[in-house]
């Protein structure tokens, strides 16, 4: 029996990294989990992976280990092919050059619409106010495919959002995005959590469970969602983060541990049989 431990955020970043394609162009915000996922993909299966950043940086080659304070660090934009500005990279997305938008969400609904503005209370008197969409609204509207990253929790997978900051398939009816002024052929593609991976049904545009972590059951996943997603049969398995992926995250990609910090998941496994360990050390 061997044990392995990682945080929920490390799992989310790892699963997202595995979705990244070396020969595609990605759009990310200036810091946070989406950028870490791209960097992990670059350090593993996609060495030449290209991304644009909201601040106008195009295809940089950030050195490892990554800088402590990415938003304020010049090296985050190092060896780019171009330094432009926010409008310019948004034009590139609007023109159809950017394949994947990778974004973090506070809440997500069955059609992949998501919230990054506030939860609880009302708009004017929110219980918890967040930064706002930032660039998420344009990224989720203009890139060909959107990948969302969030934790699997009942208060995050909700039937009705507290606020729709950025669009998924809106009400899910055919042509809903186009009727709202968005370019056609775009929309949410994957929602990545620490225990489950979702896609979207081609016809109904509803979220569909595609894969589950080997230590979690489908019932447990569904229990942690306010709405019932469609479920693919057979389901894929989300292989836990490898020691190499975790080592890269901890020593190279987020050496201060600020973004990968989270709730610990402790596993015991024999071969591919995983069991969640409930030892006291599992507490964060």
């Amino acid at each position, binding site marked *: 029996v061997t044990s392995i431990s990682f945080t929920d955020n490390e799992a989310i970043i790892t699963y997202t990294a595995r979705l990244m394609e070396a020969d595609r162009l990605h759009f990310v915000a*200036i810091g946070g989990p989406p950028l870490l996922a791209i960097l992990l993909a670059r350090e593993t299966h996609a060495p030449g992976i290209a991304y644009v*950043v*909201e*601040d*106008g*940086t195009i295809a940089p080659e950030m050195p490892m280990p990554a800088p*402590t*304070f990415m*938003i*304020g*660090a*010049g*090296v985050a*934009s*190092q*060896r*780019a092919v171009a*330094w*432009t*500005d*926010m*409008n310019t990279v*948004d034009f590139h997305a*609007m023109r159809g050059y950017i394949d994947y938008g990778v974004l973090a969400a506070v809440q997500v609904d069955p059609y992949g*619409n998501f919230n990054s*503005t506030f939860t609880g209370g009302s*708009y*004017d*008197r*929110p219980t*918890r*106010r*967040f*930064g*706002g*969409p*930032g*660039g*998420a*609204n*344009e990224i989720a*509207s*203009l890139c060909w495919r959107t990948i969302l990253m969030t934790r699997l929790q009942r208060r995050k997978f909700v039937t009705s*959002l507290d*606020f*729709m*900051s*950025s*669009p998924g398939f*809106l009400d899910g009816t055919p042509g*809903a*995005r*186009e*009727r*709202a*002024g*968005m*370019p056609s052929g775009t929309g949410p593609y994957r929602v990545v959590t620490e225990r489950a991976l979702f896609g979207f049904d081609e016809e109904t545009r509803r979220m569909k469970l595609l894969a589950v972590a080997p230590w979690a059951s489908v019932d447990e996943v569904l229990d942690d969602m306010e709405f019932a997603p469609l479920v693919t049969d057979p389901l894929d398995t989300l292989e836990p983060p490898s020691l190499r992926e975790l080592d890269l995250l901890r020593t190279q990609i987020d050496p201060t541990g600020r973004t990968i910090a989270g709730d610990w998941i402790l596993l015991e496994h024999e071969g591919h049989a995983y069991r969640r360990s409930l030892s006291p050390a599992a507490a964060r």
Partner: protein
Amino acid sequence: MNDHAGLLQVLDAGDGEFLRPDPDGARAAARDKDRRLIDKRMSEQDAVARFVSDGAYVSFDTNTWRRGPSSLMREIIRQQKRDLWVAAKFAAHDLTLLTAGGCVSKIDVGWMEAGRVITEAMHAGRIKLYEWSNGALAYRHLAGALGVPFLPMRYLGGTDVFRHSGARLIEDPYTGGAVCIVPAVNPDVALIHVNECDVYGNARTFGPGLAPVETALSSKRVIVSTEEIVDTEEIRRHPAQTTIPYYVVDAVVHAPFGCYPGSVPGLYRADLEHLLEFGAAQARATMPEYLEKWVHSVPSHMEMLEQRVGLERLERLRAEETHREGYYS
């Protein structure tokens, strides 16, 4: 005639208040500016006193984390400007400080550092928020810079952001599809921190950025703070590096370490200890003490650097920004 040449149809409209686009007002402000090459250097006190009025719409670029006009924003707090309407196209804790200083009453949100100060000000009814996105705000500045009243774009529609904004969804009069339009913004004043500038205001911004050029061109008045004043001969030797020409600029403020505690990439790194001090002040609700220490008790930016930061720390921040490539090489 085609099918769509009839009356323009508005399909949906957000409810948010917005600063009325004012291309003619912006043109009039441009007409009245001096076209001569005149020395526009002045102190931050004079620049803010002359060009930032109570009630003004203020736009800054970038933010206090990276190449932003932190020293000018501290001066706004020092002079206790009131009732400002701020464009938060990726605002950092600069907006928190302006709010804590009692300077802000309205915020157009793209993204902002939203902590205790902003939330409490919302609950107390001291600030009102309007929703856009970073890109939508940058684009509204582009419309302002072009001198047109609005621009079409292909996002915001269908979301709650649209609902809380001043955007409109219209039937495209050329193709008949739905398209979102957003109003130009012509801020009363722009605050832009640049790497280098001559005494007339010919300015250079190095590195990626939000929308320094659009912010300058859309605004009626433009205050440029600069790390370094360079000779006009240097500007003329490398004209491709000029991003903002002199006739747009009203004031040139020499502000070394003007982004402190943030970074100007290629020159100095961010002061992470200071950022932690700011974070602690917000968490412990001791912003008045923070503002007293860093803003009110020191009469100017240079005196703040000398008395509160110290030469040794500044030299360390400069030495530890080892990356020059693309900026100064």
